[in-house]
């Protein structure tokens, strides 16, 4: 086979995957970038070049800054807690405890439920007076709160829902990685009299770093991607206390049909995520070692 023929075969084999990737990722991203520099086309007022106007409008919009702050708090809430919880759960169910399969299934169940179903279940949990949490707190005599209806607690509540949903998913990855570890490491540690915490910190945790990097990347993506429960539970309220970036983009793009403003905000979100991804791969990858 000539070199040209071989190269052609290679490109042809690559073509379907590349076509899908370009069609659903690169082309929309480029289209969004271009759209963000024009005004929204309306039937009576066709689209004109607007330069940086859309970006300026976004940066002047207090709701954008609220959504950004909310999203950063949401990320700070979900990422460390869900990753940490996943690691702890995995270490726990890795041991030979009674009812191990049942516990694993219990931890994984939130993952298989669709987010909309989860949001509706938690809507009931949070209902004041006769919701599950209100009844539990009532047993201890505490007064009922309007969890989702007050600005101080609404964001924390939706963060808890997100953690509940994704911790189980990350646990699976950690469990798989833990089961890959050769048992003689644990035996050696036991022989040398290392405590469980010491073994975890010095042996298991460093060996789990590749999984941690993967899980962290996923957690960061999820922190900006999960807005389904917001749509069901609070619709961004009260007064934008639970508005996240993606939710605001959806509101602008499909609620108000202001597509160029939504495009501009999407570009800002993409840039942010790109920077975080660079930081993660640049920084973290140096500190882990693959086997």
């Amino acid at each position, binding site marked *: 086979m000539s070199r040209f023929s071989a190269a052609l075969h290679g490109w042809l084999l690559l073509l379907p995957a590349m076509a899908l990737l370009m069609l659903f990722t690169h082309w929309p991203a480029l289209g969004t970038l271009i759209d963000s520099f024009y005004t929204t086309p*309306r*039937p*009576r007022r066709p689209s004109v070049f607007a330069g940086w106007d859309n970006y300026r409008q976004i940066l002047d919009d207090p*709701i954008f800054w609220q959504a950004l702050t909310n999203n950063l708090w949401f990320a700070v809430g979900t990422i460390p807690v869900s990753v940490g919880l996943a690691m702890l759960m995995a270490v726990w169910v890795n041991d030979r405890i009674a009812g191990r399969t049942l516990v694993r299934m219990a931890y994984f169940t939130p993952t298989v439920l669709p987010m909309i179903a989860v949001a509706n279940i938690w*809507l009931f949990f949070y*209902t*004041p*007076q*006769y919701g599950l949490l209100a009844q539990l707190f009532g047993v201890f*005599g505490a*007064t*009922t709160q*309007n969890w*989702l*209806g*007050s*600005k101080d607690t609404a964001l924390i509540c939706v963060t808890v829902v997100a953690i509940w949903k994704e911790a189980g998913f990350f646990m699976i990855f950690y469990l798989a990685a833990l089961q890959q570890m050769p048992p003689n490491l644990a035996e050696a540690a036991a022989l040398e009299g290392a405590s469980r915490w010491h073994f975890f910190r010095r042996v298991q945790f460093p060996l789990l770093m590749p999984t941690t990097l993967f899980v962290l990347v996923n957690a960061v993506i999820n922190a900006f991607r999960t807005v389904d429960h917001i749509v069901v539970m*609070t*619709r961004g*309220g*009260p*007064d*934008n*206390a639970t508005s996240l970036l993606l939710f605001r983009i959806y*509101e602008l793009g*499909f*609620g*108000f*049909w*202001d597509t160029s403003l939504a495009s501009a905000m999407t570009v800002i979100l993409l840039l942010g995520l790109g920077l975080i991804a660079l930081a993660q791969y640049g920084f973290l990858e140096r500190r882990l070692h693959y086997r």
Partner: protein
Amino acid sequence: MKRRTFLQGAAAAAGTAVIAKPAIAQAATEFTLFFPVAVGGPITKLIDTMAVDFEKENPSIKVKPVYAGTYQETLVKLMTAHKGGSAPALSVVLSTDMFTLIDDDAIVAFDDFAKSEDDKKWLQSFFPAFMENSQTAGKTWGAPFQRSTVVLYWNKELFKDAGLDPDKAPANWAEQLAFAQKLTKADASGGVSQWGIQVPATGFPYWLFQGFSTQAGAILMNPEGNRTFFDKPEVVEALSYWVDLSRKHKVHPPGIVEWGTTPKDFFEKKVAMMWTTTGNLTNVRTNAKFPFGVAMLPAGKRRGSPTGGGNFYISAKAPKAQQEAAFRFAKWATQPQRAAQWCVDTGYVAVRKDAFETEALKKYVAEFPAAAVARDQLEFAVAELSTHENQRVTKALNDGLQAALTGTKTPEQGLKDAQVEAERILVRYR
């Protein structure tokens, strides 16, 4: 397979296709109907039954009802389909989305299809209060289908327990507050087991707020839909009354009350009076295990409520045959007997006066007078807030209302900020 068998089989298949094609081409005109479900009850089943009944009477038309979520979600789906080029011929969305749909050339006026005398009479047979959000620039863009007003439901048992006359609803703001104070049961530690009154504020607080603002004597927008009056003193007064119910008098749950669970709160006796749509009437009647009453909203300076609910809209991008079929369905579904039946099945107000003269509704109202309350309130009803870029302007007001109810801003500040935002959006439509 042998080559000959294969060729014979292929020829047979091609032959069948050729014969079958003209048969299929003669089939019914099929159109899609997007509809929302905003109240409790088996709405989807009712609409499906309606579609089947219509198809029986009109064998050349097929209706495909598609349940599309809340009013806002149905609008999103309708606009997405319109921009994608293949809109459903008929849809039920909020009467207030009229300007938004016109601005995007998404709908056609009913006048284009009302050619016969009968059709024209049909267009004029609706309650005038419902036509305020359905007509502009001399044309009728939406046909009222499931329309409502806000009403007050009260628990007669809890009224009796609190020493109030169980058959008398509060008639004005002062009585509403006084009754609520008697009905609120707080225990020693400050926890409340029963609230006097609750008015939901999730999703679309502006609609319930329009009850308060109309009662205070204010109108929130002009008929052209390009100017709002959110910061007038009467409007501030209305919002202060609502906010004080929870923050000052503590007879109303603090923060934002959820729309979807408010009827359940009522059934569970966690609240004695609630403001919600008359569309929930059948839901309340089925599920409340205690005697309850329905009344017009208490008067401020005057009685008042916004109208609400959805109209039929015909999409501009649907093919002409489908539009005609959609017009036929809209006309069929709002005939007096059917409008009456819809009223009985849900609690929405029958959209035309002669529906209340049908036997079915006369009997229903006689045995269940609550069904006529929303109709009687039409006398005091005003148009629902509707402007250009409606979703954006109502969001500005919603945010202001939620800010005031959660205490982040004073009512005056919240409404002033909402007015500034609405002005910014609407100034280019003047």
